């Protein structure tokens, strides 16, 4: 799979084909995050069903505690 993730081209294993799997791939599944695919925000309930395809433009912003 090829995505544009946070402004960069990335190549990920073919199994990473949903938002849920993408978050798991980056160990962000337990984090508070906002995900956007092709300029549309994906709600948490849709993470499993929202399929990703080659060329998708994905933005992930996760929240961190520190300061």
């Amino acid at each position: 799979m090829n995505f544009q993730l946070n402004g960069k081209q990335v190549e990920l294993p073919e199994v990473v084909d949903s938002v849920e799997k993408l978050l798991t791939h980056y160990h962000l599944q337990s984090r508070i995050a906002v995900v956007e695919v092709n300029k549309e925000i994906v709600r948490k309930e849709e993470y499993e069903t929202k399929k990703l395809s080659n060329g998708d433009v994905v933005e992930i912003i996760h929240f961190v505690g520190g300061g």
Partner: protein
Amino acid sequence: MKTRYSRQELFLGKESQKKVESGSVIIIGAGALGSSSAEMLARAGVGKLTIVDRDYVEWSNLQRQQLYGEEDVKNKLPKAFAAKKRLQQINSEITIDSLIEDVHGLNIEEMIKGHDVILDATDNFETRLIVNDAAVKHGIPFIMGACVASYGSTFPIIPNETPCLHCLLNHLPVDGMTCETVGVISPIVQIVTATQVTYALKILAGVSVSPILKSIDIWKDEKAEIDVKRLKNNHCPTCGEHPTYPYLKFENQTKSDVLCGRDAVQIRPPKTKVFELKVFTERLNGNVTNLIINPFLLSCGFDEYRIVFFRDGRAIVHGTNDTKVARSIYTRFLQYYLE
């Protein structure tokens, strides 16, 4: 034109400069983010600054907390006090208040009253949610900012316009990574605060800001921006049609009680949830000693303390009767559950 603000006034214009000089900003936290934004705002001539922090200056702070020096560490000065001292050297023409206090749901409203902008410089979600409730309730813009390692994020919460922090959450917040477990470099601090202070100046000057959630990783050279307008939730308990401001409620406060005569402190989290003790045990592996687990609790040595941790998140920290110490141990301990 006052010479000291002449460059800024040339940029902002006379009217806006005046607004900045009569503005007031409260900064919640005086660690890395708080030091950096406080210095910028003091130099900018913001009329009144309030700095809130519960902590003392330590050696490990000096790498990035720009208001402090070695003498402050040696004298174990509270950060809010040391910050005020330094800020007054920088600009004696403005008013600086320092509050050496732990922010909670029952004192935050009093703290923020009368301020035009609230800047987030806290190091945990719990405090952010408390401030978020109070900010929305009182209609004061709250500029979020956070950083860990080389990554940081910002979001301006404008009551009645943008979603609030509560709207953005897709999980129950439990405190994740803080500087203590993964470290942080100072350039990311400066990027986060540069963004936050820009928002603050715009708001003081009466310029509108957009609801863009931003993140940047200065080391990996990555950045992202998401317009989160769509996440504003009409049923949000904080900014929805029937707000309850849950984090300001008495029953939702984290409580820490000294257990008399036992050199121990009991911590009760604000929200109960069930922890998988077995999973927790696996994640603690190698970081604790004398670990004992049963269906109700786990007990182990952690640094020089002993922690008894119950399934519902309640814990007893043995080896101290200082609630502040116990709370910080508890927070650090909990982080293993999340990694």
